């Protein structure tokens, strides 16, 4: 070992010894001041490093957070769509359950369920389009009902769809029977979608709330299908008949699923009309 190497080794040992003693607290206040400066320096360097690190890495975090946010938002949208779909299915199930109850309580008729898929493009007419047609044995003239009551009748049919004239259509007229008053009348539709009764004999007493059923006269509809209730009666002495406004049993603004009575054949009585 030459003298230069020996010198370097001694310097290292001395400095190392001083450091060891200083860190061990053997230099008292001088050691504390030295360590305080060291810690200050360390703190300063560390804080600057963290600041630079934040500056460099923060944008990357925002990008990743945005990506994650987008991902979660898409998941929320998907789940919301599923919730809406499931709610729709629950609604449909409720309607179908009610219709099944109705068909069970009326076993004399056979039914074919159909969904309402559209309405007449003209505001003058009150028709709906259903997704069953001649392929499902639907024929013109078949009555259409829900569990609440009469909806209308099939007006025209193609292979997979049919058009149904609602009882609210201005051209619709149905022979009906007032259950409590035990009299016949005629149910008429209107432009507004309201239905009214006409041809009620003047000598008959009709009360609000009286139940209106199809009479079956004329052969266009089967008898005893519920239509609605009398709301108000209008009696004028100089008129031949009384009129009444009617609250239909069916909510025509929310028609979704209907039943077509497939075992009813309308009777064409026009050749018998003089």
């Amino acid at each position, binding site marked *: 070992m030459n003298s230069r190497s020996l010198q370097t080794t001694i310097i290292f040992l001395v400095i190392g010894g001083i450091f060891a003693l200083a860190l061990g607290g053997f230099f008292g206040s001088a050691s504390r001041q030295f360590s305080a400066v060291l810690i200050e320096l360390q703190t300063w360097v560390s804080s600057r490093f963290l600041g630079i690190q934040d500056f460099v890495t923060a944008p990357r975090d925002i990008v990743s957070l945005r990506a994650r946010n987008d991902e979660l938002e898409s998941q929320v949208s998907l789940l919301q769509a599923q919730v809406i779909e499931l709610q729709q299915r629950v609604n449909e199930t409720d309607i179908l359950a009610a219709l099944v109850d109705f068909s069970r309580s009326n076993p004399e008729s056979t039914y074919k369920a159909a969904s309402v898929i*559209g309405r007449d*493009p003209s*505001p*003058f007419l009150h028709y709906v389009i259903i997704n069953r047609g001649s392929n499902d044995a639907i024929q013109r003239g078949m009555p259409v009902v829900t569990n609440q009551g009469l909806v209308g009748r099939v007006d025209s049919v193609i292979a997979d769809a049919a*058009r149904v004239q609602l009882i609210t259509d201005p051209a619709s007229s149905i022979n009906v029977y007032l259950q409590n008053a035990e009299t016949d009348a005629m149910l008429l539709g209107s432009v*507004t979608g309201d239905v009214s009764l006409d041809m009620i004999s003047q000598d008959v007493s009709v009360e609000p709330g009286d139940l209106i059923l199809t009479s079956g006269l004329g052969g266009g509809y089967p008898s005893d299908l519920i239509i609605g209730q009398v709301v108000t009666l209008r009696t004028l002495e100089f008129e031949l008949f009384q009129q009444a406004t009617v609250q239909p049993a069916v909510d025509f603004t929310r028609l979704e699923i209907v039943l077509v009575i497939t075992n009813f054949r309308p009777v064409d009585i026009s050749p018998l009309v003089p």
Partner: protein
Amino acid sequence: MRNVVAFPLLLLAVILQSAVVSQVKLLSGYADLPLLMLGAWALQKRVRTAWHWAALGCALVAFVSSIPWLVLAVGYFAVVYVAQTLQRRVWQAPLLAMFSVTFIGTLFLHLLSFAVLSILGTPFSLSDVLGLIILPSLLLNILFSIPIYAFMRDLARWVYPAEEFE
């Protein structure tokens, strides 16, 4: 070749009319999407197929609607005729022309429907029809006419590009 866009577009318009627009009611009236599209299409300067569109629109709506097809045919062709006449005369104010076509077309088609259905035996009161159907429909049609005109103008530019025209 791009003219075949009439088929899917008018089909979509009739489906929307039957399934959606007919449920958005003002009193008892609602907008007439096919009529507005035909009027807006016929108002475009480069368009040469408005009559074909009217025939197709009439066929599609007549297939869905219970209204006599002759009413639709006369009504839609009248709309195209009025639009093309106005387009030649007030071409500098296209929106004014669109409003005029909408106004005249809606009134004409609805009054024609009223007359024909009354003749066929449907009991209508003119005051009810005016107040509950025609005027609300007119208002809705005028509201819808602005976006539909903009859409059909863009469509016309796509179907008839300027360089091809010139």
